[in-house]
């Protein structure tokens, strides 16, 4: 039997975000779980499952169980499929509950890569010299994920004529949403010109094409929808789910730079949810870079492959537009918590708790996760009603 609507997100915990110092990722994770169970109106003792996803800073793993003083858990794992993990944790939690091995699962992500004297770029561009041929990457000057995404984005530009100004429309729209999000780190409006004038990090990516880096943590509680209905918050129903992992290949004929796992994940997710693309009210699309949003929208079929630039350039993703997307400001402008950024905003919107940025029609929300250089993808369809 389908999982559609049987399980729900009953609690959401979001810590302070950004340049918050003096705490490690284990403590951010512990606080996020505490906030999520309080939000749901659950007691700590009612948790019997814990799924952990750590970012780039060391320390957070299965040890979170002890930091939270949780005993005799029935489900515990440290999961890692990069930015697709948050969506996957919700999926695996639902499946494990459905299998009858666990009842109430906290899924948490936390990271604390920022230190007072470290730039955001340095926090993610580690440079250990690898032996043998792999060391060549450093000799050529390849550093961090910026280079990989710039190469992918440039490929899209060369193949389809996508322009930097079109990517800028995504950055401008997300910032306009962030202006209305009290949790967002960047709340000053920007224009296309600001985007164009921002320095290049790795051309074609300007600074305003790139996500923030944040210290913080976010957790959600997954449990039976029926039990969730009796709790404090309106349940956010898990209606559809899917994954797609193209992996990376350097063989001719494959196009890992311009094709995401959305093309694989969407079929299972929409089939399970029993809805179509046109039914989706809000999109929370993983946005490590503006380009990731553009290529993901194409792969879901919101527009044809290669036409993402023309699709977004009229500003339809913005609060004034017809196509509400990344309504909290995303990782470009609100906070960078990997897949928890789109997931948390989806929960807030679906509950109708987004305040000034609330999208009036919020019954169905598409949430995507993405990791590696477009190598891993997760998809969730969430809703305000169980079917």
């Amino acid at each position, binding site marked *: 039997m389908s999982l559609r609507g049987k399980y729900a997100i009953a609690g959401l915990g979001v810590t302070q975000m950004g340049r918050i110092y003096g705490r490690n990722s284990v403590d951010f994770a512990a606080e996020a779980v505490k906030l999520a169970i309080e939000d749901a109106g659950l007691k700590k003792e009612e948790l019997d499952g814990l799924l952990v996803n750590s970012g780039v800073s060391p320390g957070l793993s299965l040890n979170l169980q002890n930091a939270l003083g949780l005993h005799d858990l029935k489900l515990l794992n440290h999961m890692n499929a990069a930015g697709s993990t948050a969506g996957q944790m919700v999926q695996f939690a639902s499946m494990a509950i459905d299998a009858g091995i666990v009842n109430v699962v906290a899924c948490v992500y936390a990271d604390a890569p920022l230190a007072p004297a470290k730039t955001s770029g340095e926090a993610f561009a580690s440079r250990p010299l690898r032996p043998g041929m792999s060391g060549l990457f450093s000799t050529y000057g390849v550093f961090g994920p910026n280079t990989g995404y710039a190469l992918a984005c*440039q490929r899209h530009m060369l193949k389809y004529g996508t322009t930097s100004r079109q990517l800028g429309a995504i950055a401008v729209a997300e910032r306009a949403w962030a202006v209305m999000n009290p949790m967002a780190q960047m709340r000053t409006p920007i224009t296309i010109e600001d985007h164009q004038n921002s320095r*290049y990090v790795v051309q074609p990516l300007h600074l305003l094409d790139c996500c923030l880096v944040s210290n913080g943590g976010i957790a959600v509680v997954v449990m039976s929808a029926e039990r969730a209905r009796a709790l404090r918050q309106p349940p956010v129903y898990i209606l559809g789910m899917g994954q797609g992992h193209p992996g990376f290949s350097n063989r001719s004929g494959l196009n890992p730079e311009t094709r995401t796992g959305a093309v694989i994940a969407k079929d299972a997710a929409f089939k399970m949810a029993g809805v179509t693309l046109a039914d989706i009210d809000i999109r929370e699309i993983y946005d490590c870079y503006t380009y990731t949003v553009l290529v993901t929208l194409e792969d879901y079929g919101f527009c044809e492959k290669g036409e993402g630039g023309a699709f977004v350039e009229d500003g339809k993703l913005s609060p004034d537009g017809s196509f509400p997307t990344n309504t909290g400001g995303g990782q470009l402008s609100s906070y960078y918590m990997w897949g928890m950024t789109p997931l948390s905003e989806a929960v807030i919107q679906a509950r109708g708790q987004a305040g000034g940025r609330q999208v009036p029609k919020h019954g169905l929300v598409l949430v995507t996760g993405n990791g590696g250089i477009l190598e891993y993808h997760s998809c969730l369809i969430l809703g305000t009603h169980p079917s």
Partner: protein
Amino acid sequence: MAESEVPLPVPDERSKPFFEGAKRHELVLQKCKSCGAVLWPVKFRCDSCLNTELEWAKVSGKGKLYTFAIMHQVFHPGFADKVPYNIAVVELDEGLRVTTNVVGCSNSELRADMPLEVTFEDLSEKVTIPKFKPAE
């Protein structure tokens, strides 16, 4: 090695034929004896047919530009006087894409599918690496 220098690769036992080839100014890559796939960088096993019987073979060194990026931010002090420099992905005639730098033209002259050929840069007594330049 000083912090302010470009990090040099350290050839190891497995990658020796590649670096020895580069020293002779030849592009030598692993090739699967079973299916003929050319591999890059060094593998234990062919990722196409999963066979472990691999040999080293000189390849054409010819290809075309698949995509590129221009590094503006300095992520390593060794590149402080090199920005903006390019990172290029070259699709070799053998059906494999490799990451490299294109030399011999300015960054603004880089074009999709431009024909390229391998060239070599002697970085030290011990280490020579392949790069690519516009084909003649």
